[in-house]
Each structure stands twice: as C-alpha cells, then as structure tokens.
C-alpha cells in the first residue's frame, strides 16, 4: 500500500535548481538502501509503464552509473553520471546527464539528503542544480516526454481538442 505522503516540488521561477521532498513510513537506513541498492532501485525508479535496466551501478564515491528506461515500444532512454559521495545513511551526491538531449554536456548535480524523523520515519530532500534556468526548465520537460503518462494524456487530449476546433 502506498502511503498518503505527498511529493513536493519546489522550483522557483528564474532559478537553476529544484527540490523534491517526500516523507516515508520507514527508518532512514532502509530508505537509504532503497536509493542505493541496484536490485531495489529497479523496483521503483522506473516510470510506471516502463522497464528499467541497470547497465552499471557503482554507488560509492568515484563510481559511475548508467540506467536505461525502456518503453513498451522498445525505445530506450538512458542517463548516466558519477557518484561523488555516499555518506551512509545521510547523503548521496552525484552528477546526472540525460542521454536523449540533442547535445551532450548538460549535467545536473544531485544531492539527496535523508533525515531521520520520530517514529521510524524518514524525510528525503533531493536538490538538483542545473547549469542554467533554461536547462532546468527544458530538461525537465524533455525528460518528461517519456516519464509521465498523465502529462501525455493531458497533452494528447489538448492536441485532440485543437484538431477538432
């Protein structure tokens, strides 16, 4: 059963960073493990209608990773980066680059912080720092092309309406 905990996105206009906040009904060590263990990652990190493949996964500092999401048509969407710090069970710092962009070099610095809360609960705050405001807005939108079913449906409906009118 999913909890009722809500995901919060903080992305102020004109800034080149965004935050993702979420609380979990599980102790910090466990949540941290779900973020760093390859077997666990494939069970939740992929968008709901896609398979996820891990080509490489070295969570420790200096290691690198490459994950691939595969849609039902077999299209692959890869991303990769380098781990900068793994401070168990408090903090993960790594770079992130989406392979699907028209040019390479648009790299994001990601920091995930894991805060222990009372009653064996955990708060996770992920900060993503982009190279520019345009990178932030554009990459999130580009990344969502494959990521969000709801947005696709919304946009499909919108475009269908445009075609009718």
């Amino acid at each position, binding site marked *: 059963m999913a909890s009722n*905990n809500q995901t919060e996105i903080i992305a102020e206009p004109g800034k080149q960073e965004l935050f993702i906040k979420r609380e979990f009904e599980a102790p910090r060590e466990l949540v941290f493990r779900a973020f760093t263990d390859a077997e666990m990652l494939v069970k*939740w990190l992929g*968008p709901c209608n896609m398979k996820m493949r891990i080509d490489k996964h070295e969570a420790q500092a200096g290691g690198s990773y490459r994950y691939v999401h595969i849609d039902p048509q077999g299209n692959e969407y890869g991303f990769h980066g380098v781990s900068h710090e793994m401070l168990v069970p408090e903090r993960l710092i790594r770079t992130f680059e989406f392979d699907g962009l*028209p040019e390479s070099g648009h790299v994001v610095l990601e920091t995930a912080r894991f805060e222990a809360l009372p009653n064996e609960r955990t708060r996770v705050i992920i900060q993503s720092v982009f190279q520019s405001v345009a990178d932030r807005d*554009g990459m999130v939108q580009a990344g969502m092309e494959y990521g969000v079913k709801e947005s696709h449906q919304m946009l499909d409906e919108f475009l269908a309406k445009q075609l009718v009118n």
Partner: protein
Amino acid sequence: MALQSRRDVFQAIADPTRREIINLIAFNPLNLNSIAENFDVSRPAISQHIKILTECGLIVIKKQGRERYCEASLQQLGEVSNWIEQYRKLWQAKFNALDDLLEELKAKNKKP
C-alpha cells in the same frame, strides 16, 4: 496523429535555441530577420528552428503587409509549461512504488 504531435512539442522545447526563440517572441512578435539578429547561428538554421516550432503549433506566423511576424502561441505553451505539476506526478508515482517496496522490506525484517 496526436501521438506524433505530442512528441514534436516536447522535442521542440528540448532544444535550447528553440527555447530562446520562444522566450524572445513570447510577449513581442518579431519577423525572421529580427529573431536571427539575436543568434550567432545562420539565418537558414534559425529559419529551420522556426519551421519546427510552427509545425508543432508553438508559434504562428502572421502576415502584416509584406512582413511575416512570428508570434508565440501562449495557450499551447501554457499547457506545456505546467511542468512542475507534471514532474510532481512523475515522482509521486515513483515514490508510491517505493512505499510498497519499503512495506515489503519492513515485513521481511520483522520475520525471525
């Protein structure tokens, strides 16, 4: 048809030059020459970007006398720029899956 259009919109705004073009004309329609003056790339390249943006409905070209002005289609952009809520839904779906996994792990840990 709708599927193809959707892909085009996201591909269109994934390109930094095209995003700059949209920003440039968002509140102020410009003709092709005035747009091209703002970029280092060639005029034909800008023309190609504008063609792509026109094809997916992000900008419309309006004739005024002999000049052709490019205007941003803000209604369409408004739908796309609602990205924070869409992004939130994407992560909410992933984290809901993580909730399930954490419940499984907690149950396993409780067993002797």
